[in-house]
């Protein structure tokens, strides 16, 4: 058993980004897990606690002007924002993988259409498109609704990276040998391509989740998010709305920013770590 | 033998990897006379390219010069600072690179890549003189003047390699090192490029070190040939005698594995694998694959014996007194 721990230790020395990334994300999940046990969700709704209280024993993170216990809001907010990110991320990866494989594997008209639309959509500012959609839906958004809005363009970047990977793989010798061994296309995709693609898929998923979270916080900060639910983005919106900063209520805006930063740095390091796993610098430089 | 222009003495170059120090070049001694063409032949991983790059001072980490000297005249190149070495490159020692396909800067024109080499060593050349030097040097390698304005992607493989040759000889260096210059070219273009290098060598009187794995190319081009195996020198000698009567068993097998056009079906391979350069076994490295291996070969490293213009490192010649 310790041989495997030893191998893992040696690997983390060579790939620190992965370890630190996982560590940060674990810290956040722990914070949410333990927090949700001790702090009741009910204290996240407005007027549930006395308003604008400085952090104290009773309210470790203080309360905001609308009477919400900020510790409860942080705990609930983290899980809601993560949920938005994961839903949008998975949708993005799912569509991205299919489109990426289809356009790379079955060349021709399909490929030109997909590649063309990806190139165009990449330059379009995704946040503004989402603003348009959110405004058209005019409030009344649930957390899941927000995830769907954010996932509108979440598939563009994964399609592009996966298509590139599959293209290089398709020309490689071992795919030719597989075709010669009589393996059918689906078999080749699953048996020959997928194992090498998994690290890239994981890295693209992490990037998609990060992008989705960034977009959702942006939309919510603009006031286009689910008004009632205490997501991290909505907290930022209320901070801006009530200009908490100018009122010196540091305990209102500092915690969401800290959590968001930890979340993004964690996801970023995880993605670079997975990229390193996919083609280690050693193999890359050889 | 004061006419020796370049001398390598017990040169050692190791690559420090995770698994340990790879002894790419392990105590190589050889010398290059003025105007001589020396061949450095061996299979992949024998250290010939490492020697070429070490002479140019282009060994980067994890590679490092562990020991030995490289004497250009009286100057020991291994002791020079980066600045001093930089001033020698192209001026005294020119390199014709291996990767013909990718050795030119893809985003600048051919003439700029010739000019920046010259200007790095002599600031005062006027623009007009530089342009005439560019045309002169391009024509000397058989390329028309129009090539000066072209980019790398507009040239064929052979033309790209000729531009590299033009750059390497643009400042008339004393020594030209060609590291497998034609391995990426077709056989027809290879002959044309090698002929160009040969003519230029005669005109400039420069000495050439040709590193490569094609014994046929060596037979046609070099005066003296050094055979490398797993980072060590196994045999050196004038090319005619070496081909006629190879001394070292590895050289014999190497020559036998060449599919010449004299007689069909008479070429066979060398069984076994090249040894690991990290955990170097004791004794002669060719011992496991050598048909004439003896007991002593697995214990002692054979010394390089000298005799009538030829050198060989093999215990077969321990008894014979070769002075």
């Amino acid at each position, binding site marked *: 058993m310790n041989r495997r721990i030893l191998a893992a230790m040696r690997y983390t020395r060579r790939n620190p980004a992965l370890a630190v990334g996982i560590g940060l994300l674990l810290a956040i999940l722990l914070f949410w897990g333990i927090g949700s046990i001790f702090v009741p969700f009910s204290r996240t709704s407005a007027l549930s606690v006395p308003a604008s209280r400085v952090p104290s024993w009773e309210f470790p993170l203080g309360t905001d002007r609308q009477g919400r216990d900020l510790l409860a809001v942080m705990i609930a907010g983290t899980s809601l924002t993560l949920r938005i990110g994961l839903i949008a991320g998975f949708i993005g990866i799912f569509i991205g993988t299919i489109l990426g494989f289809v356009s790379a594997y079955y060349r021709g008209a399909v490929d030109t259409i997909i590649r063309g639309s990806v190139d165009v959509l990449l330059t379009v500012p995704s946040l503004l498109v989402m603003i348009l959609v959110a405004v058209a839906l005019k409030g009344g958004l649930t957390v899941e609704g927000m995830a769907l809005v954010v996932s509108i363009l979440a598939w563009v970047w994964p399609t592009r990276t996966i298509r590139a990977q599959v293209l290089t793989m398709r020309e490689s010798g071992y795919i030719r040998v*597989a075709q010669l061994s009589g393996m059918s296309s689906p078999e080749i995709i699953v048996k020959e391509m997928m194992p090498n693609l998994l690290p890239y898929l994981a890295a693209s998923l992490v990037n998609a989740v990060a992008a989705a979270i960034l977009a959702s916080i942006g939309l919510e900060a603009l006031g286009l998010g689910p008004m009632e639910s205490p997501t991290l983005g909505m907290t930022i919106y209320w901070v801006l709305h009530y200009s908490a900063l100018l009122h010196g209520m540091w305990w209102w805006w500092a915690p969401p920013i800290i959590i968001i930063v930890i979340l993004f740095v964690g996801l970023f390091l995880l993605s670079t770590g997975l990229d390193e796993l996919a083609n280690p610098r050693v193999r890359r430089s050889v | 033998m004061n006419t020796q222009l370049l001398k390598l003495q017990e040169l050692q170059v190791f690559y420090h990897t995770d698994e340990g120090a790879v002894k790419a070049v392990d105590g190589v001694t050889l010398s290059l006379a003025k105007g001589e063409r020396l061949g450095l032949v061996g299979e992949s991983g024998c250290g010939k390219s490492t020697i070429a790059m070490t002479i140019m001072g282009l060994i980067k980490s994890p590679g490092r010069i562990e020991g030995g000297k490289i004497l250009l005249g009286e100057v020991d190149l291994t002791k020079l600072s980066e600045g001093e070495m930089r001033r020698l490159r192209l001026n005294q020692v020119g390199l014709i690179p291996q990767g013909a396909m990718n050795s030119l800067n893809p985003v600048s024109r051919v003439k700029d890549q010739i000019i920046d080499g010259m200007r790095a060593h002599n600031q005062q050349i006027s623009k007009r003189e530089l342009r005439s030097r560019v045309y002169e040097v391009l024509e000397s390698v058989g390329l028309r003047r129009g090539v000066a304005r072209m980019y790398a992607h507009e040239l064929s493989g*052979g033309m790209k390699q000729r531009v590299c040759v033009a750059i390497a000889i643009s400042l008339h260096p004393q020594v030209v090192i060609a590291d497998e210059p034609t391995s990426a070219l077709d056989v027809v273009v290879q002959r044309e490029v090698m002929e160009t290098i040969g003519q230029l060598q005669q005109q400039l009187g420069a000495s050439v070190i040709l590193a490569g794995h094609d014994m046929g190319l060596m037979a046609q081009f070099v005066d003296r040939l050094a055979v490398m195996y797993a980072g060590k020198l196994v045999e050196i000698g004038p090319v005619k005698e070496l081909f006629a009567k190879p001394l070292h068993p590895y050289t014999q097998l190497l020559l036998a594995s060449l599919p*010449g056009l004299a007689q069909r079906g008479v070429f066979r391979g060398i069984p076994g694998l090249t040894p690991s350069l990290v955990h170097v076994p004791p004794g002669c490295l060719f011992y496991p694959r050598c048909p004439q291996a003896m007991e002593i070969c697995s214990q002692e490293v054979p010394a390089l014996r000298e005799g009538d213009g030829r050198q060989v490192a093999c215990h077969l010649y321990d008894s014979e007194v070769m002075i």
Partner: protein
Amino acid sequence: MKSIIELRNVTKVFGGGRSSTVAVDDFSLAVDAESPPIKALVGESGSGKTTIALLMLGFILPTKGEMLYKGQNFQRLSRRERRMFHREVQAIFQDPFGVYNPFYKVDHVLDIVIAKLHLASSRAERQALKEEALRGVGIRPEETLGHYPHQLSGGQRQRVTVARALLMRPKFIIADEPVSMVDASLRATILESLTKLNRELQIPILYITHDLTTAYHVCDDITILYQGSIVESGGVEQVIKGPKHPYTQLLVGSIPWPDPSRRWGEGQVAVVDRESTGADNQCKFAPRCPFVMPICRERRPPFFQADNGHAVACYLCEDKPVVEGGKIGPC
């Protein structure tokens, strides 16, 4: 006697419009299953030899002309026939590093074949089959099986692909530059295992290479390619010892003899003007040919029968009988 694989007047053009390149131009070649020779297809880079390999393997389709498998057009094969095609037509590729999926051990390549062709029913039988195939190509199984590709040398990896072909008992093997990335000392052993396949298992082999010397030793007959078209074809002694086409003479002359006393390509300086390739109606080698005649620029030369089974596409042999229908190849 139907030939197992035949390319009939195949032309392949890549890219469209202005930047299209003709990789293969009106090329015909037939491979017969009986008395299987080892045929060599020799040409410089860009002569279209790899495109021909891809055409024969069905990876790409001809722009003009047909690729026939046992007399039937490849594109009209049924699913079952196509699977039979993949079983009977195998290949050995140039790059020993790219042929293995880095994720799996080396055995994967052999296991897939055994599974797909149901060659073994039990694990023990499968292991035995693998070991026997590996010994057949001269490598010790314990040194290779169970290892990852990056743990083996180029030579070992290439021999495992030959072992893979040995397992499949194909009807035809295309070896596309199998030894160009392998050291000289290992070249012979790999080529030996190929010739063994041909002699003992009667499998016709198409050896594609740019290296005339290895082709001289290994093959029975040789076809010389220049920019997508055949310029000369015949028995190996005839073509190499008595080349009739100026390009073949240039090729043979450019080989550096491993013999210092014999000077390199005496005389014969070819006019090198690479950019301008021959227009459609003229001989492609005309711009570089030292013996170019006016007729060479007007009409593309047909194949002349220099002597028994030795065809040359050059007006220098104008006096010889013309071979009809472009169907050449030694009988």
